[in-house]
């Protein structure tokens, strides 16, 4: 790791981007809880972190292919058993939403601490 504590920061960023994209997918499921023939969507993390870890040439977060949405695998649920063919179970979606938002907040908290530690190291006040 070339930087003190800095190595974890891009990984956390990747994870938080994923959490936001997944939150959008789960929100779409809730919004479409009564749309006929809607099949639920979900995102899996699948290799997004590994890709980010292996990418050393990334110089800007907005460069193509860097932490972009294409790193996530889209999963579609089956057709529902309800008469309208909708496959969304509202309570399950809300639980997943809450869990996902919690993960995002945890990652944001860790990132905040990492930056604080780095600032402390830079200022030299720890001596």
């Amino acid at each position, binding site marked *: 790791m070339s930087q003190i504590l800095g190595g974890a920061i891009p990984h956390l960023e990747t994870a938080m981007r994923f959490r936001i994209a997944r939150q*959008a997918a789960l929100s779409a499921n809730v919004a*479409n809880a009564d749309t006929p023939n809607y099949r639920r969507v979900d*995102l899996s993390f699948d290799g997004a972190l590994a890709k980010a870890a292996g990418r050393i040439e990334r110089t800007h977060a907005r460069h193509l292919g860097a932490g972009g949405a294409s790193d996530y695998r889209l999963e579609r649920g089956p057709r529902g058993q309800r008469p309208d063919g909708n496959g969304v179970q509202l309570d399950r979606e809300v639980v997943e939403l809450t869990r996902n*938002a919690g993960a995002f907040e945890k990652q944001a*908290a860790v990132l*905040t601490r990492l930056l604080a530690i780095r600032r402390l190291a830079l200022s030299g006040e720890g001596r």
Partner: protein
Amino acid sequence: MNLSNITDIAVSGLIAQRARMAATASNVANAHTTRTASGGVYRRRDPVFRTDSIGGPFAGELVRSIQRVQVERVAVDPRPPIARFDPGHPDADERGYVSLPRVNLVEELANMKSASRSYESNLVIMRKVREMAQAAMQIGR
């Protein structure tokens, strides 16, 4: 995909569910309406939902798969009205039958419950987005 996209999706859900509640309220309120502006007996209304893409034409497959909801149209019940024998009613026909809307109160109330539950779930999303935004705002403090 960012936090404001999520808010857009949740807002679309709130609007759709509110339309459904409005239709239900209209059905219950007009359960005995025999005269309408278009003539004839009231027919129950039911909004039809469909998915709506949030990305533009160049959006990737992932963004196109995450969709908000939209009220496509308000369907009018095609079933014939209920004929009830009531010769004293001003809208009774020559045989004494009145056409009444085919509105089932139990069905409407169940619909209302379902719509309000969905509405609340969309509100949960809004709350979660706010919490996530607050957590993101703490970064760098």
